[in-house]
């Protein structure tokens, strides 16, 4: 069936702080009273757009025998972001948001829906270009965050893998290997062996 992401019409708010993901390397949490609207694919709920305050932490660090490379990402989330994935736990802590509450949070329903739609359009466009296919993976999640370059940073997560991609860095981590690519360095680690390439890409291998 063709993917057709659409926003629900009901705007809700979180009644408690929510942990949207928690793994060994990543954590995303949003505060109480964060606004959210559901994303549907052919009438099936597949995710949410969130608008409020939260925190994104990703340990984009690669361990090698010559030391650790990289630093953790620790960002305040105060722009709308999108999540596709398991939402049962989230739904338990959502309640309809009134227009007064929307005003108190700095906008109205129309404004919020426009921002949410813009984000969904950006994501759908990117998804179309890159061919993301894991939107229905039951144990996995995809997050998309707007950045200052007006593009999207993406985070793909499941039980064994994490992929984080931004304008200037990429990080991939699975059970036995990690890859970190920044503008000045590429670090690969696989089963205890590692490879480091520095700009202008001279390199050394470690045992």
């Amino acid at each position: 069936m063709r993917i057709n992401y659409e926003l629900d019409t009901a705007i809700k708010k979180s009644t408690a702080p929510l942990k949207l993901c928690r793994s060994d390397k990543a954590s995303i949490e949003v505060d109480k009273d964060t606004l959210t609207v559901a994303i549907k694919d052919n009438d099936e709920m597949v995710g949410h757009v969130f608008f409020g305050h939260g925190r994104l932490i990703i340990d984009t660090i690669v361990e090698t025998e010559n030391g650790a490379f990289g630093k953790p990402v620790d960002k305040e989330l105060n722009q709308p972001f999108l999540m596709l994935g398991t939402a049962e736990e989230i739904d338990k802590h959502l309640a309809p948001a009134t227009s007064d509450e929307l005003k108190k949070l700095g906008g109205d329903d129309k404004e919020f829906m426009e921002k949410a739609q813009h984000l969904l359009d950006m994501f759908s466009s990117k998804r179309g270009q890159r061919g993301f296919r894991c939107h229905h993976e039951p144990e996995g999640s995809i997050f998309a965050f707007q950045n200052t370059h007006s593009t999207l940073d993406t985070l793909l997560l499941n039980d064994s893998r994490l992929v984080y991609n931004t304008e200037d860095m990429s990080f991939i981590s699975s059970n036995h290997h990690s890859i970190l690519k920044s503008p000045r360095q590429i670090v690969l680690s696989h089963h205890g062996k590692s490879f480091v390439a520095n700009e202008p890409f001279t390199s050394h291998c470690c045992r």
Partner: protein
Amino acid sequence: MSDELKEEMKKLKEEIASLKDQLKGMTEEGRPRRGLYIDIGNVQQYADDVMQSVAEGVHGELERSIFIGPGGCRIWRGPRPQREEEERPVDYGQAAKAMSALGHEHRLKILNALMSGGKYINELQEELKDITASTLSSHLDVLEEVGFVVQEKVRGRYLITMPGRTACKMASRIAGFLKRGEQEE
């Protein structure tokens, strides 16, 4: 004399003539050369192979036993290429800050404890019993600030970085040199 003997004499004369010709070719203006004559056709290639092997061995040994800088460790067989990075002036302020972070016995012990792998703070406390919990935490902050240590934000483990390993090995080597110097005195 029989014909057989005549034939034998003829062969011997031919052989002597042949030997004289060979001897003449090996002399210069009639004088015999001195020294040992060896075919050196493959020696240059052999020497190159040996040098390559030695260079690789030394490189490997350095990687195993001495520290490797942030840019890696290399042995160049030809003229060393100039790199833009190497031409930058040394930031002595930053270097002094890093040296200052190393200037405490406890911090050196912490770095050494992390050389074997990432550790949680309680594991470090268990290993470094002579350092109190609050002191350990403040030392880790200092090491993290200069980039010798990085802390995972999700799990909370402390990991030693490449500069941290380099600093720890450097401190060990300096201590080793000083101890050797004392013994010699």
